């Protein structure tokens, strides 16, 4: 008992080093709630009118909400491959358009039930499959079948988003808030709760720098504008910005520690984005404008380096393993 009192006293005196519960309550849960709502609206809109032009605004709004919470890659979103299904990108082998073209050519009746749609290839589900159906010249002339397909995929997306929110609300949020409590088998110590959020922050910054920006940049001799994320819908740069806003929210809710270099890094990146009039990052192919995108990529890498150094020692954790550790 003496120990407990001493510990409480120590905590009272110390600044808030890490506040996992605050991240859960003010970043993760509201973000998943917003996603569940906007994907439901997307489903409803497709139900009313499946014409691509009619569905696009709701798809854009829901995709915005996804990007904000996309740094969270653990827990319910990792179960059953949901993160991969909701956001199957990059798709270097064009699995998405191939799978969609096959479904449409065969008018595969599997999509007539929710259970059937859930069996589809991840490449034919989620936001990026919908982007093909709504923006890709190959698919935008809708047939009765492709209309059904848009309805099936939006409903599937709404369903997964609702399941994720539900799983957080009915147990996972509490297990993360109570990391280290007796009987908590998911997070054996408080440190493990902090670590998983810290890992998410670093992995998210890395993904935006190396993949969202790195893929279209390619090399100087060989830039790859068509590898930009969501170029068909004209939102490549918007995705960079929204993912960084989500990451900043994660960082700010996780800790009150002074992290001046990290904070300045975020501000610098947002300034660069505001100055970059290039929604699909097409400028990678032009030596002049390419430099601006390289500078932005470097700025995002700098945020990661800063966060790693500023937060790691103070939080007392190091990044754990993340799903992008492979190739």
């Amino acid at each position, binding site marked *: 008992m003496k120990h407990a009192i001493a510990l409480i006293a120590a905590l009272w005196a110390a600044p808030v080093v890490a506040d996992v519960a605050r991240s859960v309550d003010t970043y993760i849960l509201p973000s998943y709630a917003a996603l569940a709502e906007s994907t439901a609206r997307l489903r409803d809109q497709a139900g009313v009118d499946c014409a691509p032009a009619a569905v696009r605004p709701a798809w854009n709004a829901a995709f915005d909400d996804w990007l904000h919470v996309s740094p969270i890659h653990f827990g319910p979103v990792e179960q059953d491959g949901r993160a991969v299904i909701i956001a199957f990108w990059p798709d270097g082998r*064009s699995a998405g358009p191939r799978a969609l073209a096959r479904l449409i050519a065969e008018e595969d009746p599997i999509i007539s039930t929710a259970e059937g749609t859930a*069996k589809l290839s991840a*490449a034919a589900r989620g936001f990026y499959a919908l982007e093909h159906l709504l923006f890709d010249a190959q698919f935008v002339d809708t047939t009765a079948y492709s209309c059904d397909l848009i309805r099936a995929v939006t409903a599937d997306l709404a369903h997964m988003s609702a399941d994720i929110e539900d799983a957080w609300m009915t147990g996972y949020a509490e297990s993360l808030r109570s990391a280290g409590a007796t009987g908590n088998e998911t997070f054996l110590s408080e440190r493990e709760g902090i670590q998983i959020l810290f890992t998410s922050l670093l992995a998210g910054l890395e993904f935006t720098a190396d993949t969202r920006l790195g893929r279209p940049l390619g090399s100087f001799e*060989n830039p790859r504008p068509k590898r930009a994320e969501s170029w068909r819908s004209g939102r490549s740069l918007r995705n960079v910005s929204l993912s960084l806003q989500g990451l900043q929210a994660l960082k700010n809710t996780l800790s009150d520690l002074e992290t001046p270099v990290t904070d300045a890094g975020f501000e610098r990146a947002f300034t660069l984005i505001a100055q970059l009039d290039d929604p699909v990052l097409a400028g990678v192919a032009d030596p002049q404008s390419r430099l601006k995108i390289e500078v932005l990529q470097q700025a995002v890498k700098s945020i990661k380096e*800063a966060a*790693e*150094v500023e937060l790691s020692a103070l939080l007392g954790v190091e990044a754990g*393993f993340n799903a992008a550790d*492979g190739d």
Partner: protein
Amino acid sequence: MSRTFLTALVAGTLTALPAFAVEKTDVLTNYANIAAAKFADSVISAKTLDAAINAFLAAPSDETLETARLAWRAARVPYMQTEVYRFGNPIVDDWEGRVNAWPLDEGLIDYVDTAYGGATDENAFAALNVIANPTFTLSGTKVDATEISKTLLSDVLQEADGVEANVATGYHAIEFLLWGQDLNGTGTGAGARAWTDFATDDACTNGNCDRRADYLRTASALLVDELDFMAAQWIEGGAAREAVLADPAEGISMMLTGMGSLSYGELAGERMKLGVLLNDPEEEHDCFSDNTPYSHYYDGLGIQNVFLGHYTRIDGSVVTGAALKDLIAETDKGVADQLGQEINTSLAELGEIVTASENGMAYDMMLARDNAEGEEMILGAVDALVAQTRSIERAVAALDLQGVSVEGSDSLDAPDAVFE
């Protein structure tokens, strides 16, 4: 061990010394010894493969082709056990693409089925077919490929045009030439290339048999060279061994990084879960030969080797010594025991996939959209690998290796330099 005990007695400080302490340097030396043995075994079995390929090309037939294929499968056994060295050791990681790059756009190398398609947005050379085309233009440069040399494969074609799917060298390029495309989708059967693709006379099928034979011969010889290079990095004085031994805490961190990254991001994620989620047989690691269940299993076994500090060589002899498991157990026996159990579980799950494939359900069949049993088996192994990753993180924490990988950073050392 007895010497330590004696020294302690003589010094009269028995109570002050942890007499049986596991020394980090002993664990690391054993780790390097095992790497040296594994890469040496990889060289030996690649030479056996090379001999079988040369015998096949000298006298092509069903039998000699089958012997070469068996030698390829055997060569995968020690190599896959080395993969646990990949992610923690930059020397291995920077090199491994030369021998095990995957997945590949095989149309770069040879003829493919019409369903494969041609060049793509991603890869302008996806259907280059160097075997049929002795000269071609690559990124604006004219290439003379009349002689299929090692340099052509490793310096010109490998990752041509900066595209990773342009794989011209290594196990999978050889696999493609020995088996051909697996055109069975998620149905029964692997690649079924006929020996006549390498016939030296009128029996030649699909044209350019001489160039195809040259390619296979060259790729095989190159594989031996590459593995020789890596084996040399791990012997006494080798760069990879020195890197591991340079700093004990950093070295242990490299061991655990390799185990965790292979378990989670690479094997569970990239190689297993993705294939199931896409129902795509092209996402199969050894997709031409359907050897994938074994490749996954030996990846898993490699992780256990590092944990237990124990490796059984291809000749049956054993390399063993101070174990990471015991080092972890000194600090936190609970974590060590749990990780040991979890690795046993993941190996059992991976073993189930091997058994199922031996009983007729090939790995690509497990990926089929309606194969719930196959999906459950693969995802069972994925879950086990993810679970052990959490314990590997706990081991890192228990051993207090924090901070070892956080090196000096421009952003803190010279913030102005970053934001200028």
